Structures are given as structure tokens and as C-alpha cells.
């Protein structure tokens, strides 16, 4: 799994990664919910997990990490990486391999 920053619009607020395979998605989301995330399905095929002030938006294996815009600039990368690590942990906890060591894009 690799974490990429979307430079599209708001500075360092939106990041993306992909889960290794379709079968990983549901158990990973369930694990995150067990760890306290709240889950909603605002659209068909799209799941939104609220984790603290932040959100993970999941469609297929695509996961978009949306940080709260209140996150100070200097903490945004750290917060994104923290959520990414939590996501990888959830993949592993779901009994699946493929999360790897986690890499961040340049």
C-alpha cells in the first residue's frame, strides 16, 4: 500500500491509498469500526468512516483520507500518515497480507 497526497486543491488535506484487493475492503472497514470509527453509506458503493475529526471515504479499493480543515498545516502530513498506518493495521488485523510496509509517495 502506498499513501499519496492529492495536491488538487486544499493544501495537504486530501490523501489517497488503495487497499490490496476487493476482498480486503469489508473486513478492514469492520475492523476500523470495532476500533471506534463511525460508519455511514451516503451513496451506493461508497462508505464513509469518521475517525475523530477526519474521514476515510472508500469506493471499491480506493480510499481517500480527508483531514479536517482545522488540522494545522504542520500536522497534516503526520495525521495522514497516522490514519494510513491505522488502515494498514486494519488490513493486517483482518488476516490479510499485502499491506506491505507502507510506502509514502514522494
Amino acid at each position, binding site marked *: 500500500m502506498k499513501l499519496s497526497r492529492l495536491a488538487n*486543491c486544499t*493544501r495537504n488535506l486530501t490523501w489517497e491509498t488503495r487497499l490490496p484487493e476487493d476482498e480486503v475492503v469489508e473486513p478492514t472497514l469492520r475492523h476500523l469500526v470495532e476500533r471506534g470509527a463511525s460508519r455511514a453509506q451516503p451513496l451506493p458503493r461508497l462508505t464513509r468512516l469518521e475517525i475523530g475529526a477526519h474521514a476515510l471515504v472508500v*469506493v471499491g479499493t480506493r480510499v481517500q483520507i480527508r483531514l479536517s480543515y482545522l488540522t494545522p498545516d504542520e500536522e497534516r502530513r503526520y495525521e495522514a500518515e497516522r490514519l494510513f498506518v491505522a488502515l494498514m493495521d486494519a488490513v493486517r488485523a483482518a488476516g490479510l497480507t499485502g499491506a506491505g510496509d507502507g510506502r509514502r509517495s514522494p
Partner: protein
Amino acid sequence: MSDAISQLKSLMPGCDLTFFGGAPYVFHCHHYNLFHDQSVDDVLGEEAGFALRSRAAREAFRPLLAAVFDAAGATLPVERIELATQIFAALGHGRPSLSVSSDGTGVATGTHLHYGFAWREKYGKQVKRFDPVDAVAAGFAAAASELAHGLPPGSVEGTEVNCVAMQHEQCRVSLSRVAPTPLAEPLAERMMADYVKPPQRGLWEDEVAAIADGLRGFLGGVAGDERGLVHAFNVFVTAHMANYYNETIFESVRALEERSPAVVGAAESLFREAGHVCVFNTFGNIILSPEWESMVEKPGDDPERIVMSCLAIARSLGFGHWLVPEMKVGERMVMRTTTNYEAPYYLHRYGRSAKPRCYITTGAALAIAVLAHRVKWSESPTLDQAYYDALFRGDGLGWEAEVTRDQTMGDEVTEIVVSRR
């Protein structure tokens, strides 16, 4: 928002125009909003630009607030101020704190007003700003104060004295009394029949209409958070009064036509470019979003699919009934509107124009063709300023737009032919 107030929202069938309390409204993102306001200031100068923007916001919000107060049965000033604040926040403009005396004077403060906060997010690390940006909040606060205390239209003026874009801790708008100025009668839903035309079917019509309906439904559930901001599709979004955008553009251009006709073309180019900014940022980020992937598809590189997507997005944002009756990939695209949000305002306020005036629609048509043909959507492009510059500035454009018909000139439709250079 209570049911009584929610029911004030309406969609004009076949026209893809949206109204709140009878006032036309559209969705725009912070990139567009900041570019729009900056363009007004570039044309008129900061002081006159702020004055026009503030006045236009006051005039645009008055009918909405009046309708909301009426629907809610709010008669006390304190009720009206509270309700006005809630509406402003629900629309994504931020949640100001308003403190107003019975004579209409007072202050409005806020740490997360849309324009100031978004400006700081976008430019704060690179640019030092010396002028406030929240003319919309200033105009809104003036309108709320007038209506809360039954004061004549145009009798309260908002002046922003502190702004987070200028690195102040919070924005602060001072409200003072001024001699009432007569308002132009605002364009409202009940007058639209005079200006809209029957819808036409374009290419991919059924799919465009279905996607627009779906996206419109999704947007209907989007509202400001506890700070009154909407952070969606990777941008800050506002539901905004169309009369505000129209008054500020048309009054700027007309002022220049009186004073400095030689440079009118430059101003018109700026406002057409605002259409590029809108399509690139708002449309582009919607297409790249997980929500779009869920509702429609993962974007690919077929230009026709991108054009179809953009038409659906425009309709869902309340921009009007946009269609493409003819397209030859790689060479030519004809975009037409039987209704757009610009022309009715112009015709209502000024009568027929001697030249095309649908600036945003024209700029958007060109941008749609460029995004459809030049962007590799399958590679998840980064829609940042550098990419915008590469696509739209210098020699990068590669496409040109010609307005062949324009509803502000009395034509049945607005039509833009976009061709490869």
C-alpha cells in the same frame, strides 16, 4: 433547517435553475469565488470592488432572508438575526456572530467565513494581503440587520475592518447607517417565465438528465458544518446567490464601458476565465471524487464521456439547461444553453445587449472542451495551479470559442462553438 424553510428550495423543471426563497442560487467553489471577486477588484480597484461586492451581496441576500423570516414566522429581531446566521452557515458561507442594535448598527465577527478562510488556505503561505475579502459576509450582515429591525433597503452598510486573510485572528465587519439607496428589483423565480426557453435535447440527453438528478439529490443533502463551511469534493463549496455573481460582473463591465471602453475586452476576458476556473476546479474535482466514482463511473479518457459529465454537473449546480447538440471529437464541440443563470439577470435588469454577455457560460464551454481533450483522467491528474496554467494560459489552450448566439442579445439560445485552433 426546518421543513418550512427547506420547502423554500425549488427547482424550475426543464430549466435546471434552482431557487431558495424565490432567489436564484448556484453552487460555486472557493477557487471560483476568490477568482470572481479578485476579477471584480481588478476591474474596479479594491475599494470600489469591495463596495460593489458588498452592495450586491446585501441586495442578493435580502429576498432570501425575507422569505425565510416569513416562512419561519420570525418577527423578533433576535429571532431574525439567529435565523439569518443559520441560513448563511447552511449555505457554506461560515457562521458569523452578529451583534446588532435596534438602529441597525453593530458588528459581525467570524473566524471561518468562507472567503477569508478559503483565501488563507489557498494563498496564506505565499501572499501577504492588505485588503479584506469578506464583502459577501459584510453585505449579508447588512441585509440581516436591515430586515431584523425593519429598516429601509440599503440603509445599513457593512465594512470589513479585520480579516483572517490579512492575518487577523478573526474577521470583523462594522455595520453603520447610511442614506438608503433604492435597490434594483432583484430577479426572482416568479419573473423567470419571461426569460427562459423550452428545454432542448442534446447528445446523451437521458444520461445527462439522470446524472444531474442524482448529483442534485446528493448536493441537496450537503450543508455547512458547525463552523458553517462545506468541505466537499476537495474544495470549499458555497450555495450562493446568482444575483450576486451577476450584479458584480455586469456592473463591473458596464462601469468600465462608461469610463474606459478601451479596456473592456480585458475585463470580459477575466470573467470568461472565471468560467475556466470554475470548470477546472469544481467540475474537475467532482469528476475525480470517490462520490463521482460511486454515482457515475471512474473517469476515463473518452472526450465525449467527459463532456457528458460536465453537462450533468452544470445542470446539478443550478447553472441552467446546458446541452451539446453536436460534437466531433478532436475538432469541434457546440454547446448550447436554453437557460443559463446569467442571461435572465441581464435581460431583467438592462434589457437586450448589443453584444454577447454570457461570460461564465462561454468560458465554461471552452474549458469543458479543453478538459475533455487534453486531460488524462485515467491517470488521476493533479488539478493544481501549475496544471491550470499549462492548460489555460500562454499557448497551452489549443482551442477557441466563438459565441454564435447569445440570450442576452435576445437570441432563443446561447450557443458557443468551440473549435481546435
